[in-house]
């Protein structure tokens, strides 16, 4: 069971209050009509699905109903950081980072 820091409520809550909306940073193409079927298909369905660091979009569904991003290790399930929509992650694959036992940072 994940313990997730909601950056809007500024505290940890249980996973059951949240809903994962999948991979983060998938921007809707600005001009969908200009997309080929292949490009539109990639946007709709193709995902990174990494073993390791993953940037995800979550919503605090039973709380403040706001979306946010988090970076999570899909092997250890450790949450490395939580950040707002529109922001970029600071922990990315390949970046030097320490595995800590302290969970997400606020």
């Amino acid at each position, binding site marked *: 069971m*994940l*313990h997730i820091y909601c950056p809007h409520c500024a505290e940890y809550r249980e996973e059951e209050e949240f809903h994962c*909306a999948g991979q983060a940073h998938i921007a809707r193409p600005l001009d969908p009509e200009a997309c080929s*079927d292949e490009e539109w298909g990639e946007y*709709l369905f193709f995902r990174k699905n990494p073993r390791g660091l993953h940037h995800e*979009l979550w919503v605090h569904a039973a709380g403040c109903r706001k*979306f946010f991003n988090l970076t999570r290790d899909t092997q250890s399930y450790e949450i490395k950081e939580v950040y707002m929509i529109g922001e970029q992650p600071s922990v990315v694959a390949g970046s030097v980072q320490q595995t800590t036992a302290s*969970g997400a940072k606020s």
Partner: protein
Amino acid sequence: MTQRNRLTSGGRIDRSTSLTFTYNGKSYQGYKGDTLASAMLANGIDVVARSFKYSRPRGIVAAGAEEPNAVLQLGATEATQVPNVRATQQELFDGLVSSATNGWPSVDTDVMGMIGKLGGKMMPPGFYYKTFMFPESSWETYESMIRKAAGMGRAPRETDPDTYDSINQHCDVMVVGAGPAGLAAALTAARGGARVIIADEQNELGGSLLNSVALLDGKPAADWVHDVVQELGTFEDVTLLPRSTVNGYHDHNFLTIHERQTDHLADSAPAKMVRQRMHRVRAKWVVLATGAHERPLVYANNDVPGCMITGAVSAYINRYGVVPGNDLVVMTTNDYGYQAALDWADAGRNVVAIVDTRSVANGDRVEAARQRGINVITGSAVIEVQGSKRVTGVSVAALNSSGTQIVGSVTKLKADTVATSGGWSPVIHLSCHTGSRPVWSDSVVGFLPGPTVQRQLTAGGINGQYETAIALQEGLDAGQQALVKLGLAVVNVILPKTKALHVAAPMSLFHIPHLKPTSQAPKQFVDYQTDVTAAGIEIACREGFEAIEHVKRYTAMGFGTDQGKLGNINGMAVAAKALNKTIPETGTTVFRPNYTPIAFGAIIGRHCGALFEPERYTAMHKWHVEQGALFEDVGQWKRPWYFPKAGETMQQTLNRECLAVRNSVGILDASTLGKIDIQGKDAREFLGRVYSNAWAKLAVGKCRYGLMCGEDGMVFDDGVTACLGENHFLMTTTTGGAAHVYEWLEIYHQTEWPELEVYFNTVTDHWSTATITGPNSRKLLAELTESDVTNDDFRFMDWKQITVAGVPARVFRISFTGELSFEINVQANYGMYVWEKLIEAGKKYDLTPYGTETMHILRAEKGFIIAGQDTDGSVHPYDLGMGWCVSNQKPFSYIGKRGMNRSDCTRENRKQLVGLKTKDPKQVIPEGSAAVLNPNAPKPLSIEGHISSSYWSESLGHSIAMGFIKGGLDKMGDTVYYPMADGTVIEAEICSPIFFDPKGERQNV
């Protein structure tokens, strides 16, 4: 009945409270403080089970969670039956009824035992993979026989009378295990001001100290336990949980604790009490002080009742005042095994010998035994046990220094009890639950907790530290570390003094050799409950099952209800030897929740029966119930399905309800439709992006129907949205789709288009909606309002704010029936009032309440779709023949536009929604029926489409249906066939789905 193995004094039992219990129909006595197992041993009960595969008699081996054999059926009544209760963990209560789970006619004289003896040789591991294949049809016959013989206890046939619940806890430090290490850790953390939970599976805190004769500060260890527990009880932020097993350690320091609140009192919980409770704990830090399980040694016939582990022997003597036999032989690889002999001798019974596999034994405990005059035989082992339902003697032989071969002659000794110790296995189960891989330690001769990302500390036996003084110190250290990590000031705790004993190194030995090769020796059990033997493991390895997971799966080792707590390490050792590898090379052992089994009831708590899932009600629900409505589940809502009158069949009710609407007026509770209030200057733009049709020009006071598609172009919801003000809209959604639509709007607003000035608020529950529909609906409305509701002033697809029955209302003139309709929305606190006023005023128009089924018929007569019924995620608006609801003129590429223009979405011959009229007007095509062009063609037939909605239309006097047909919109007038399961075929003609009032005149009057 006398308790022939009960000592006259000693132990933590209350001899003044005698308890009666039955086992296999026979009555026995025990005492308060007994476990069922200790009481059985006190009464000299030897055979407690028949083994799973070979049906061999089995006795009690251990004293705790690791017990593999004493697994019983409990329960005095049918409803309170509990299968597979471990007698070593079940506290005795007065009136307890127990029985063995296998054995026919009884566990003592079991016929299957003979089969086991004869057929046992035919049952090597995996034998079932190699046979029962011929003839091909035979497996299911064999299988049903196997199934009858398998299984242990039985489920009750009646509903559980007890309640359970769960409670969510938060703490700074969760201490698992209340032995010396756990108590020291908890005390330290508590004194430091931390919020502490300490849980232990036993009925009182103290752990191994309760089984021990060790002195702390010169006093019995139990005194120190008592003082610590008392002090812990004084802290407001410390929770003490005895009878509470920490069963699962999940991610991010989430733990589940299974607390038995009344299992020690009676079969069923006393009134108002909860039988069992799950604590769902989120801990900042976890201290695992779970101790260790002793390993029995693997030797020939080591499953004969009377074969035990040494720690259990001590526990029964010291804690329960029970000596489980008269003449004891101890076999050990380490110093700790000697304690059982010392305790046995102290209890005044005969220690025949201590057989130490080490050639040199010189620890303090060894010396103590020698000083007591006990016969210590070093460099030797018990290679075989005699007896069938109870040990009668043992064969002892000298071993070579590595313990791999017998070197001397065999001596036979008379004994009725054999206690063995092959060392101790740290209880690393919880540490493994989170995915941490354990690490082998040669010095501990066991696996230790591996690296982890959890905020976890360990202390005592789990670290392979079995001396009380060290365990206490490690507990203190863990408590202090936790305080540091929590940012709290570190406090000191003065630990009790205990005599430091010299402990010599243990020998790494698991499997005792026999004179014969393992394959030919009498059975040497590794896992008692699953009947896995050393020979079986060797066969598995020989056959190529070399990974330890393969060995386990092929032999079933560790798959019992004890999850291999006693046997797994021994099994790995046997496999390692067979493969000529070390234990860590063979692989690690993986444990998964639960540590010990948990009743389903406890896991689900109150979420069962009436509280399984919420039932959502509208403001008028009580009225519907009183009118005898039957209800349909739509999402979590209870919606009236239809309102039968006495003596009516369902179809008669529907016919009556439909005709009432078509001929006069009906009333529907439409409150459950999702409603979203949308405000902001960009609300209109937003609607244009999420609906497939145009919204730019919708005037204030007007309503419009819209289709919502996914980015793939497929329809997922629909509804009417009203323009309340220039920047203010009220969107309706389907009943089941409300939550999804709301999140859909929010995700686009928050992540894609935050620049749009718009706010969404769910108002589903705020408004209650009474829909009156039918030619007389205007007259009815006019009875209750002063406002002008004539067609001139209140047009179709308008909404108005008026007063209905004195209550301010928003009335929408929209129609889902094709009739003149008004949807009257009032604040839900006044919903029932207005409803009842409508019913009253409607009497003269024969106002008829109707439910969802009639609603479905009426809309199908008009060809209106129901999202979810006439859509399945694979149809876009054009497939539905609803191209009129798509605007490709909008400047913004609305959601769904690109998707519905992908190549597969624009191809020929897609399935399209059409009407279907049966050749025989009386025939109603069953919903779901599949269409074919030639019903006589051989199978598999290509399916042209299916029926999505189908009803008898009393208004039209014939059946109606909507369904999908490949290229259907271009096939009007064609015939398709619906083959039925009974071989008949229904013939239907493709037609427009609008069956009733095709010009739409009635809603416009």
